[in-house]
């Protein structure tokens, strides 16, 4: 049996990195949209900003733990190698994580900020200097963060797509696939959190915005997966053979049933049926809480499975031995 060099930790990291990118994108976008001169979705902007930095911080930690020598991770930042996607990615990830934390801080209300700093010993004057109100700079921070979040979303795909030795990955479609999956899982995570909050039921406008976003990103993802499969079939032999991993091979069931079916098409169907009355008949949008929970949970599961399938199946693909290592 061929050994897997990258395992579950990498899968979880790729998922969490993408999730943060998606959360930041959705929150930043919500921060920019206005109706009659007032923020249209303040709650999404706030909750998204608060949630965004944590998954990527956790994921980066897992990434470091996965190294053979975790304490040598600092060496990633002693060099910049523009030809190595991992080198570019480490810098991008660090910049994005720092900015996401600053952005979350900018969304802390005055009372929360004072409470946070009251826990810092008064002697630490340097730390207390950071006690500044950044709320006026939210839009600037979001604008800087957009390209970084898109970069992190794309990078997770480029990391795999740039490996010319693995025909399952080596196409220019994996990066976009991972990006749209990341953006859709960000929207779905926000939908899940808002729908879970029983104390403060979600505003229907917020739900509609998130469902819309999710429908758009899932559709874009589908439009990438379809050409990925078609192009793979029409490509050189090694790519065609590598695709047997999901077309009859060991990852067929998880790809078609759990990822494409349950992770994409079912939530897409639920969300479109939720939107349909307001779109077609002009009725006010009325999102069902349980359906929102189901759809968002399934989208998150699909996002995870996409990474799982690609990380594992890709490592089995090869230019040798009929395209698939045993």
């Amino acid at each position, binding site marked *: 049996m061929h050994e897997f060099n990258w395992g579950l930790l990498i899968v979880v990291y790729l998922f969490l990195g993408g999730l943060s990118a998606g959360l930041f994108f959705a929150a930043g976008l919500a921060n920019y949209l206005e109706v009659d001169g007032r923020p249209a979705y303040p709650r999404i902007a706030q909750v998204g900003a608060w949630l965004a930095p944590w998954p990527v911080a956790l994921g980066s930690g897992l990434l470091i733990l996965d190294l*053979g*020598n975790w304490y040598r991770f600092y*060496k990633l930042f002693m060099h910049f190698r523009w030809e190595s996607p991992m080198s570019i990615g480490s810098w991008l990830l660090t910049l994005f994580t720092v900015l996401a934390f600053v952005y979350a801080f900018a969304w802390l209300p005055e009372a929360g900020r004072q409470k946070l700093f009251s826990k810092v010993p008064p002697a630490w004057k340097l730390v207390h200097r950071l006690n500044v109100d950044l709320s006026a700079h939210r839009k600037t921070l979001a604008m800087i963060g957009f390209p970084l979040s898109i970069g992190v979303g794309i990078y997770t795909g480029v990391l795999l797509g740039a490996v010319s030795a693995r025909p399952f990955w080596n196409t220019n479609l994996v990066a976009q696939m991972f990006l749209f999956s990341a953006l859709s899982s960000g929207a779905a995570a926000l939908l899940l959190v808002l729908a879970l909050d029983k104390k403060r039921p979600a505003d229907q406008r917020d739900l509609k915005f998130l469902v819309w976003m999710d429908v758009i990103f899932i559709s874009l993802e589908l439009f990438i997966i379809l050409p990925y499969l078609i192009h793979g079939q029409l490509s*050189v032999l090694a790519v065609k053979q590598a695709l047997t991993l999901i077309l009859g091979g060991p990852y067929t069931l998880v790809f078609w049933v759990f990822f494409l079916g349950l992770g994409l098409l079912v939530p897409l169907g639920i969300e479109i049926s939720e939107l349909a009355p307001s779109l077609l008949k002009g009725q006010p949008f009325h999102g069902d809480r349980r359906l929102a929970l189901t759809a968002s949970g399934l989208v998150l599961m699909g996002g995870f499975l996409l990474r799982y399938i690609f990380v594992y199946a890709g490592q089995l693909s090869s230019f040798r031995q009929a395209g698939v290592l045993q």
Partner: protein
Amino acid sequence: MDIRKRRYALVIDSRKCINCKACAVACKAENEVAVGNTRNWINEDRQGEYPKLRIDFEPEQCHHCEHPSCVRVCPTGASWQRKDGIVLVAADDCIGCRYCMIACPYDARYFQEETGTVGKCTLCSHRIDKGNIPACVETCPSKVRVFGDLEDPTSRIHELLATRRYHVKEPQTGNGPQLYYLL
């Protein structure tokens, strides 16, 4: 001679290979490769059924590519290439991310659990630098392997590649492999 004017490579005449695995043993002994890891190995290609059976043996190791993808993807520069073409891992800089192992089209690298770093064939650079030939080449009883400098017109491999037909493995990956298999 100036190291920049050298380009080391191996020519392999696999029809002479008898699968005795002396090359693998010599490599392990010379380089103190841990049990469970191998820097070189012999591929077996079985065709047909007994009694009409045919087996081809084909030794393989790191191809010391002209454009090594393992070096390109390394985030710290631990994987590097000497000017004479030998691809090495600087163990002190290796963080153990294993990206190079995934990027190698020949699966020629291995992970060393004890040190948390990646290991591979060094073409016995420590021997070459003293004017010797790699251990696998020296030990081979049927003279399957020929080591030499492609830039040296008087070398044996230069002559072999000029007069015999040969192929390299998976040239479509663009790595420019430097193990030449005689046909």
